[in-house]
């Protein structure tokens, strides 16, 4: 049952290069894929679990990554992170479709996996090996069917303002979940348009996200990241364990990422894509928090913490 669950959440490849390329796809370790409808039969004949792709059944996503906006005056040189996690929070029941440029396929796959969403990824053919390596990494992950953890409940009115606030919260690793009504399990419940969170203030989503952060306080945050502006995290867990998903949108390796998770966990295990002998360093628990450093990370790393 678990195996089925994880097969279901592994991202799919959408491949339109024709069945003549079957060997390359096999070499990448891929045995299931979406293909143009007219190629479905040929791919099945080649031994693949092939499905006809129908774009209408998927929500198209922008490519994840970062933009260095040198032409825009800002207080810092922190790059703009294009991430889709907040979109998944808004519409978790739908299936998604990425059409990504070169060197973004592994990132898109990691993002989709981290949020447990069904995704199909169309990539540049030269990205196929990297995509295959990411799929192999994800297949090797220990299964962990855990609910998402967050500090903030956002009552989503479906507006553009609320969407942008969700986006800004995610970019600052302020963990939020979309709720239909205030939920006491969150430290903070935010309804944009309420007296406490006026709609006018949400017109500046960055300032609004800062307001939410101040109200929450950094001490209560379930997750803090130090040492990178381009890594975003997601937390899942229960009373005894937590899984930290870390996605690096920056395009380069991160050397040293300090992570703080609220709560004391005595054991931590790291799995890092494209990093040999990955292990956590400088691990300690103090002040109701568990901290550790990831020495090196590529696109994606997962840390499992247990009490």
């Amino acid at each position, binding site marked *: 049952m678990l195996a089925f669950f994880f097969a279901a959440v592994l991202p799919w490849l959408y491949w339109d290069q024709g069945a003549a390329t079957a060997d390359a796809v096999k070499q990448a370790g891929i045995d299931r894929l979406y293909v143009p409808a007219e190629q479905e039969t040929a791919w099945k004949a080649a031994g693949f679990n092939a499905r006809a792709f129908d774009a209408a059944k998927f929500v198209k996503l922008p490519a994840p990554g970062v933009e260095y906006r040198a032409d825009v005056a800002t207080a*810092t040189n922190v790059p703009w992170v294009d991430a889709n996690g907040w979109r998944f929070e808004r519409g978790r029941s739908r299936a998604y479709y990425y059409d990504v440029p070169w060197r973004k396929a592994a990132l898109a796959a990691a993002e989709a996996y981290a949020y447990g969403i069904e995704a199909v990824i169309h990539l540049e053919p030269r990205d196929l090996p990297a995509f295959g390596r990411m799929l192999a990494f994800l297949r090797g992950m220990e299964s962990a069917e855990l609910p998402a953890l967050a500090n903030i409940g956002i009552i989503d009115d479906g507006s553009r303002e609320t969407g942008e606030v969700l986006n800004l919260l995610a970019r600052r690793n302020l963990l939020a979940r979309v709720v239909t009504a205030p939920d006491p399990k969150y430290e903070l419940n935010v309804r944009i348009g309420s007296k406490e969170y006026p709609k006018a203030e949400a017109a500046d989503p960055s300032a609004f996200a800062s307001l939410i952060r101040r109200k929450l306080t950094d001490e209560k945050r379930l997750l803090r*990241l130090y040492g990178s502006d381009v890594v975003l995290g997601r937390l899942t867990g229960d009373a005894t364990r937590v899984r930290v998903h870390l996605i690096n949108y920056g395009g380069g390796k991160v050397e040293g990422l300090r992570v703080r998770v609220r709560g004391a966990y005595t054991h931590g295990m790291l799995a890092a894509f494209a990093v040999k002998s990955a292990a956590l360093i400088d691990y300690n628990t103090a002040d109701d928090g568990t901290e550790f450093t990831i020495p090196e990370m590529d696109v994606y790393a997962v840390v499992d913490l247990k009490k």
Partner: protein
Amino acid sequence: MPGLYPGKVARVHAENSIDPNSEKVDVPTVREMIAQGMRALTDDADARDSWARLFVPADVVGIKVNCSGAPGIMSTPEVVADIVRNLGTVGVKPEQVWIYERFQNQVDTVHYDRFVPAGVHIWTAEGRRGTILNYDPNTYVDVNFFGEDDTRSNLARVVSERFTKIINVPNMKDHGAAGVTGCLKNIAYGSFSNVARSHSGFKTNTYSFIGTLASVEPLRSRTVLAVMDGLRGVWHGGPFSPSRKFRFYPKQMIFGTDPVAVDRLLLDVIDGKRKAEHATSVWDRSMAHIKGGNGYDENPSIDRFVREPGHIEYAGKLGLGVYDTGKIQIRNIEI
């Protein structure tokens, strides 16, 4: 800090210490400046005794150089080499000496290895910009300036885990945000990560952040000597020095254990030079001169930030030294 000699400094000027045209350093003169400066600071007849007051053979000594303006201006290699030589006279072996700075790409342009004995370590915290691996995860200042998510500035591991003593070797430089960059800024911003965030807007947080970082243990207690290298200086555009336009040659060195007292003298050197060049004072807080972009590179009447030279007095209030010139004992020596 403020160490064995609070409120006491020795200033040594030597006209022949550097040739402003070639920027060639006269090594015998520099050696004499250091000997006389140290003797004047400690009131010893023999410079070896001066060094022995501060260092023992078992010490592991970090030399905090400043290379942010390299290769135009940096802790002069000949000065650093003579410091290493003097440490040797009291039994500190080359293998126990670490020249350290934050950014490798800056240090690489200086080639300290050509001036110091084999065995001296040349260490940088960030071989690759932004890496936090060489910083101590457990020693940091946590402060939120403008809503940044990474609110920590961590101390370099060598400071907390390896050194027993530190010698601070700053230059005499203007600094667009801090007003000047001397002992305090060199030891603070040069030993901690993630500090540039304090001057990300026109109005900066350098006033309190510099002294706060400098007062963090064990940095504070391990920094036992400051040798301010003023052979060269920068009177505008600092801490960088891409061209010689704003470089000048004070031809002096200041010795002390009190970073506030040494930096207090630096303020007058930089502000005096700026006044002589008809540039805005380091104390000018008018927004009229503040402009974004790179205009300050060429025009000394343009500033990038509101300067905060008051960071030195603030550090004095934290107990790091003596700011009041009436209470600073200055020994002036001319060679």
